[in-house]
């Protein structure tokens, strides 16, 4: 079987619990938040490395983001990826899923030889799993979203076990394909300190390297706009702490529940 050219799309995201809304400007305050590789993307990297071990081939990482994303790509290289590419340009900023998937698709085409693109199921900073299907459409190839397990079939197609509502299905798709990987389907391996030392540098491309019309990128190329941003507020809760013996607590609990439901 011929070796697999795998590209993993990874996004550097702020840690969700450290992002807040500035109440005056009603904009996001990301400055104080530390970043990380989007957790499901770690599962996608692990999946790619496992496939390379099984079938041979290469694993490239691709990210679109600010220059500070480069060190996070080093993490993926130290896990064992062969190459890393960062699409970085002010023109990419403020992109919704349409220009994001477009730029990533162009990046994939520029990397060249590939059979399989792996993504995470969703990015934790707001978008929700629409980029992988978008990339597949720009590249006009098959897709398998919410995949839990991947293998090659003897006829060269990809076998994917994927989640559906209330169950799962096993599908065979032709390559090339774009796949999104479910969070938590594997244990991402640790960095290898030797690889960390010998890893190649991250290749950085800007908008003109991709040779695309700037009007189809970033904020300018985004059909959607954010109207307003605010801090999520849950309804005020009573926070009544129950005291007493177990039996007393149980009795109070039963009372509180009975006030709302009959059973």
């Amino acid at each position, binding site marked *: 079987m011929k070796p697999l050219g795998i590209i993993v799309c990874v996004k550097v995201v702020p840690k969700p619990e450290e992002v807040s809304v500035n109440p005056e400007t009603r904009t996001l305050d990301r400055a104080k938040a530390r970043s990380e590789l989007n957790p499901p993307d770690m599962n996608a990297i692990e999946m790619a490395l496992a496939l390379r071990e099984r079938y041979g081939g290469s694993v490239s990482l691709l990210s679109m983001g600010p220059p500070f994303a480069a060190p996070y790509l080093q993490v993926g290289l130290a896990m064992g990826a062969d190459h890393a590419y960062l699409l970085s340009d002010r023109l990419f900023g403020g992109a919704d899923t349409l220009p994001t998937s477009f730029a990533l698709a162009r990046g994939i085409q520029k990397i060249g030889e590939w059979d399989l693109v792996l993504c995470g199921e969703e990015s934790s900073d707001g978008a929700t799993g629409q980029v992988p299907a978008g990339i597949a459409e720009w590249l006009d190839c098959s897709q*398998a979203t919410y995949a839990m397990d991947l293998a090659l079939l003897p006829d060269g197609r990809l076998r994917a076990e994927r989640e*559906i509502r209330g169950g799962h299905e096993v599908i065979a798709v032709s390559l090339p394909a774009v796949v999104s990987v479910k969070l938590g389907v594997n244990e991402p391996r640790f960095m290898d300190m030797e690889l960390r030392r010998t890893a190649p540098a991250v290749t950085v491309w800007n908008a003109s390297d991709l040779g695309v019309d700037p009007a189809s990128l970033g904020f*300018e190329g985004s059909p959607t706009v954010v109207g307003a941003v605010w801090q999520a507020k849950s309804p005020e809760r009573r926070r009544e702490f129950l005291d007493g013996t177990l039996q007393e607590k149980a009795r109070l609990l039963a009372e509180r*529940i009975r006030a709302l439901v009959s059973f």
Partner: protein
Amino acid sequence: MIPPAYAPDEARGLWVFLEQEGGQLEGVALELLGKGRELARARGILLTGLLLGHGVEAGARQAIAHGADHVVVAEDPLLAAYTTDAYTNVSARIILERKPETLLLGATPNGRDLAGRLAVRLRTGLTADCTGLAWEEGTGLLLGEVTGFGGGVMASIKCARHRPQMATVRPGIFPLPPSDPDHAGRIESVAVSLEAGEIRTQILERVRHAGVDITRASVIVAGGRGVKGDFGPVTELARLLGGEVGASRVACDLGWIGRDHQIGQTGFVTRPKVALVCGISGATQFSVGVKDAGLIVAINSDPEAPIFEEADVCVVDDLFPVLEALIAELKRRRP
């Protein structure tokens, strides 16, 4: 700007994609019809259902009874089960011809698979995973309310110049509308030109569990890592209260209970009257899934657990003896 497939002034009507399984509409499709009815009425526009499948006549009637004015039905054996290519190609052809102004889809795995692909095919904007929908005052644009960053931040998103304005909505956000068998509507079959060669996916196996639906439970007893693999007491309590069992992501990841039970950002958003949250720390990714519960009871041995910030009734204790005592108490007082 990436040029739109059609201009806003050519666009008409509010459409709902009707996801179906074996000819029966998915719950979220009915929920969207209920919300769609309200939105369409507010602007005096028509509510249309888009139904793809094979042998889906009953589903079309179900859509009319749940508020659709019109159902566009595309039937073909190749549409019997969902595949990306078949559903995208057929939907896109119909949409480019009929030019809806707005298209709503359920944020189920297949609904999102389709929405993400279709939005790029149509070169339009998509607001994913909405927790609320409204028309913007003045412009009449669709405002999709979304949560980000694990649920900590909310935003409203709109799509000004591209049509259709697309949005996906999670199951359980909007109530199930009542069924009115006398509601009148038109069912229109459209010709499908679809060839097997267009479809790059072959379904080898498909397993649907009878499946619980925690989005509609009025009582949920949820367990997390703290139950240490034993969902017995949680399940018994849920049964006594006539409710369903919920779980944190960790409990599902560890294989202690099925994914259908998972509450939260990557699970289900629930709105029970009462949620009992046992041995769950209360990460934001979990809490977004219960924040609209009428009453939240938290049982956790760690007094510092974040869940206590978001609970009405708090019990700092080992969950096992507490549940045992509560179960005994409920049984004792049973009529």
